[in-house]
């Protein structure tokens, strides 16, 4: 995640100007966009991450950083999603959705993960 933050930094100023026109994110619409546009395919339906994409739930990014990264992702990561495909408002909604996902259950509270098998 640290590498991601470094990569997106140059884009933040541009993104901030654009994003000033967006409304606060709508969680329900964000989930709809997240599913409709296939974000879940790599990141999982609750943004938990997986083989093809990192965890987004409770991301440490700001909405500006999040949007900037989606517009200009790092080489080797996701495809770039332009405004024609997802507007800034839609990305703000998606951001609100991934932020709304409940925090993960700690392994200490999951008996079958909290063992000494390995």
């Amino acid at each position, binding site marked *: 995640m640290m590498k991601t933050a470094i990569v997106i930094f140059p884009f933040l100023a541009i993104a901030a100007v654009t994003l000033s026109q967006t409304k606060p994110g709508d969680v329900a619409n964000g989930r709809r966009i997240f599913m409709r546009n296939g974000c879940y395919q790599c990141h999982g339906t609750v943004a938990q991450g997986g083989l093809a994409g990192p965890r987004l739930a409770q991301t440490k990014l700001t909405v500006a950083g999040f949007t900037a990264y989606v517009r200009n992702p790092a080489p080797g990561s996701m*495809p770039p999603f332009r405004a024609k*495909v997802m507007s800034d408002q839609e990305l703000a909604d998606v951001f609100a959705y991934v932020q709304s996902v409940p925090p993960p259950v700690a392994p200490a509270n999951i008996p079958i993960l909290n063992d000494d098998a390995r």
Partner: protein
Amino acid sequence: MSKPKTPNGRRNFLKGAAVGAASFVAAPIVMAQQNPSSAPTVEVAGNEKPGSDFMVDVLKSLDMEYCAANPGSSFRGLQESFINYGGNKSPEWLTCCHEESSAAMAHGYAKIEGKPMMIMAHGTVGLQHASMAIYNAYADRVPMYIVLGNILDVNYRRGNAEWVHSVQDAASMVRDFIKWDDTPVTLGHFAESAVRAYKISMTPPYEPVILVADGTLQEEPVKEKNLRIPKLVMSAPPQGDSAAVVEAARLLVAAENPAIVAGRVARTQKGIELLVELAETLQATVKDQRMRMNFPSAHPLYGDPGQLPQSPNLSDFDVILGLEVQDFWGATHRQTPLNRFGMESTPTTRPGAKIISISAIELNHKSNYQDFGRYVEADLAITGDAEATLPALIEAVRKQLTGDRRRVMQDRGAKIAEAGRKWRQQHRETAGVGWDASPISTARLSAEVWAQVRNEDWSLVSFDRMQSSWPTRLWNFSKNYQYIGAQGGAGIGYGLPAAIGAALANRKHGRLTINIQNDGDLNYAPGVLWTAAHHKIPLLNIMHNNRAYHEERMYIQMFAAKFNRGVENGDIGTALNNPDINYASIAKGYGLYAEGPITDPTDLAPAIRRGIERVKAGEPVLLDVVTQPR
């Protein structure tokens, strides 16, 4: 080769039948009744044995347990001999509904049992069906004993079906991806080639072989004198050159931070133990590509598999030893990713890093199919079977160790173990994300299964890449039958039949066999579920049902976004929904106990418990679990 007894009579009869069929269907029978002398001379076998009985004697001498086949007229003689003359034992006949199932079952069986299963097929249409599964076995370096039926002599082809089922050179269709084949023209020739085929298949690198059983040889009485079955003498596996092995040891002992990349190293439990011995002697990280069960996953020297063990991060190492590595170049380079244009590649290893390879696959390179990967600019390349070469390498390493190097290695080993504790904890924490999600997360699925099998003698016979490698990240693998890797050729349709073949091999050992089954893969030839039910092969199938050919769906989405065309059409041609497929209903139709679709994660544990009870009673079971994509 014996000839038909009454060729003229046969031809006259067929000619009469053809004329009669064209004009009046009952004519040949009426004619025969009116004039019995015009009927063909028919020999009724008495005490004579057909050639196929001798073929059975030959094939029995190779001690193969099973023969999987979809029935075909070109090997009817051999099949009849197997089940009656041979008593349907060693090999026992397995009824398959598709030749791809036969071959993939043999693939899975061999990876558990360490020896080939026989399959039979028509030399034409049957082999065409089986070909992809044979390619998978070839690319996965797995032995398979394929017997094809064919009628070479035109005089013996009865009607159109036998003409369209006959071929000049049956094996030519797959010769690019088998190791050896022959078309014997006498029974003596058959015996020699049958024994030779087995020996070739089982000499590393293991590969499929083909033996064509000519129809006439099968069905006509034995006329040859002094037939005998040659003695089978297995070849010792090829070892690496001794001087090169000493040089490899020198590089490894002198290294500050060596890594061992394990591809298809361990053919046996002994292979696992040897790799542990080498790693512990060097205190080196093992990066296991998970193409076989190579190294205990709970071992302190086991490197973080991440989510994609096939592509290990090797940037920290100054000497990299690759043992039977698939695509070693790909493991040490990065290429321009899909979301960019053009193609450039850069090494991912540190400057000056030394690369050593030990592999037997260079003994069997072919030209057409490109499974050999890009040319590896190794500093030291050793041709030889890795498992067979490990004892000499371990000995050479020990001879070169000094007290100073031992201390360096001990410090290194402690650091690797500490890093291991951290990444294992990190994987557990990540597994908790989306723990209660529906569709069910692959981490939850894997953890729930592990919780119920960890105290059993278990065997996971599916590869776990499609589940973000969660079993690799959470389970404790230590025995050679607990993991068998993937398809080899990345040919989909392998998973279910290979799992059933592996479960068949596990059955006599009393192991609890688990298959986490991808939905797209199951739909290629689901009839093999019936084979599992019919032959009472105990196996717990747990669907990873993400309702898509998901990798392809991601590709389409990636390209649509790359070209700024919107991503809403990504499901076209890739999704498996509308209607959703009910895998429990399919399985029940084939005679299995099945439950699902399961969408609530809290329903998972009780369903797994019920499934295990059924499997322990000797049944195949399918639990349809609707899952997250990865």
